[in-house]
């Protein structure tokens, strides 16, 4: 039957329901799948969560998520119940420096070496923006790589 003779609600139902469905297909499926495809093909490291590995190749987590270090031979993150995300992977420079004597005591690595490690791994600043911080997992993985003897236990327990 011609458009004009249809009951009013049916004339309106077609664009209303149709628009809802088409917008779902474009915005809810086409767009995120397109981005997923491109991201996986061109930037797999970031797209899969910035995964972190031990020198022996074991997957241990993500550089962006706190790795829950508790032992005194490692740098440790803030008390996570005080952070917004509960998984803050970063500490400030003074927070890192404060841990140096403890780590040095337990591992025998000199304080100067540890302070240099902190200095050369600051992140988060560019040009006039941001203030420096350190990624705890990154620091500890560097320690494990540079001192395989001291950290043997953690590499071996796979």
């Amino acid at each position: 039957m011609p458009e004009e003779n249809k009951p009013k609600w049916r004339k309106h139902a077609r664009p209303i329901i149709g628009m809802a469905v088409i917008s779902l297909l474009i915005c809810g499926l086409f767009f995120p799948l397109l981005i997923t495809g491109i991201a996986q093909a061109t930037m797999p490291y970031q797209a899969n969560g910035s995964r972190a590995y031990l020198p022996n190749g074991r997957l241990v987590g993500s550089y962006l998520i706190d790795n829950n270090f508790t032992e005194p031979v490692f740098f440790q993150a803030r008390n996570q119940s005080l952070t917004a995300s509960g998984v803050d992977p970063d500490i400030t420079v003074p927070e890192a420096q404060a841990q140096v004597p403890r780590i040095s005591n337990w591992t025998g690595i000199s304080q100067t070496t540890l302070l240099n490690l902190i200095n050369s791994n600051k992140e988060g600043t560019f040009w006039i923006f941001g203030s420096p911080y350190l990624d705890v997992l990154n620091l500890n993985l560097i320690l494990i790589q540079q001192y395989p003897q001291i950290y043997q236990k953690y590499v071996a327990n796979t």
Partner: protein
Amino acid sequence: MISPLEIAELVLLLAVVLLTAWLYAPFIVKVFKRTPSRVDKLLNPIENSIYKLLGIQVDRSMGWKEYFFSALLVNIAQMAIAFVILTEQGLLPLNPMHFHGMSWDLALNTVVSFATNTNLQHYAGEMTLSYFSQMTAIQFLQFTSAATGLCCGVAMVRGFILQSKGLGNFYVDFVRAITRIFIPICFVAAIILVALGVPQTLSGYITVQTVEGATQQVLVGPVASLVSIMQVGTNGGGYYGANSAYPLQNPSPITDLVQIFLMLLIPTALCFIFGDYIGKKKESLPIIVGAYALFAIDLGIAFIPNPVTVGPGLETRFGGFMSTFWTVVTTAVTTGSVNASLSGIHPLAILAAFMGMLIQSTPGGKGVGLMYLLMYIIITIFIVGLMSGRTPEYLGIKIVARDVKLVMVAFLIHPLIIIIPTVIAYASGAAAAIGMGPNSLGFTQILYEYTSSAANNGSDFLGTLGNTPFFNVSTAIVIFLGRYGPIMCLLALSGSMLGRKRATATESSLKTSSWTFSLVLVASILVLVVLTFFPFLALGPILAYFQGHLNFFSLGLWV
């Protein structure tokens, strides 16, 4: 006070936003005026096939009622689809974590919240939603709500054009807003976010053994595509419960600045389109000055206390400065994303956040911010007219009694739907039931919940604490009225301008494109909003400040 370097960072970022928005604004005008463009070759065939499939007559312009009800009904149809997806996600694909369907009241709250550009979240996405739900319920509604707001804003502008026959065709505006504005910007934004470390995958959470041997899950998913539209569309609902405080959603200060830029871009561009659209470029002046002067006042209030370096509720990579800046921006454009726990934010910064949500046009949410600015302009013209004893006119259009009534209704909806439910929440014991005490900190959090809902902002203190039938249903009602009430009144106002006589400007008529008028506008917005809400703000964040609280962690709970 903040350091000169931090002031330089603020000014620089805002300058980049203003410049980009100013350059982008003419493109938005072209999209909605359907001016021929280079992208036609690619997009016309797609758009035309949609119009054909749905039987849409492209050149038929609508009156305000048809425009409004088309938008409302399409939105309701979208809510219905998303509601089914959320409650039945257990039966749907892409659910590697085997999450169950949502409860009806939480799903109702969620779809109303997302379809209206609010994005209040009483759930933590990473523990509740399948990948399919994140994409086809959450991201889907984030696109469509942003597009709906933008279309309504543009439709209102069309009422002020001399030769306009109608407010435009909603379906055509809606399609073009998605295909030509949101998808392209979000495409670029999502790719940049992935490059800077935001995940985008469908392959399930990763279970790992940490270095020390404990078991941990890395919660990845299609995050970047969601974050792009949540910021560009001033939606604000995050992939994760902790929103942009979660490192996988916002890994570094660079992504933080990118996200701030994205949320400011289109609202700022919309401030520039009004004059361009009606063919009187200078008329954009009071809009952009009004929006940014009020935004600057908000920032000023927020940065009176010296922001802490790192404190409870904040993320190390952002610190107090970037967290405070974000909080002001996200409420100024009614996005509602957060990069810190609001409990860790200073009461004065929370006061600034309230100001942004109460004014709603600094520069405000997608399209709706522009509508509110036009509303304030008409109120101001009316007040100025009363004071000088002259018939109020805007762009040569006489402002009649009905216009002022509509504008007042649009304005007064807001305080009513904030204040009444706040009182009910306390009187009924619903606030006490979730531990919110009758003190400045508890009161701030409940008032914030309804302010954020009414302003379609979506940031909140409560989070999953608000997942009770009382708060789910009451905020859903507030959100719905706060969205469609003012839009309906303002489209009715604009629709009634069509075909009205225009007087030619004379020496004695009010020059709305002047700096003087812009400043009067700023003052009148401040007076209106402050007078309406001052008693409530005084009991909340202002009292908290004078009691010496530095954040909302202590004493906020009913103990």
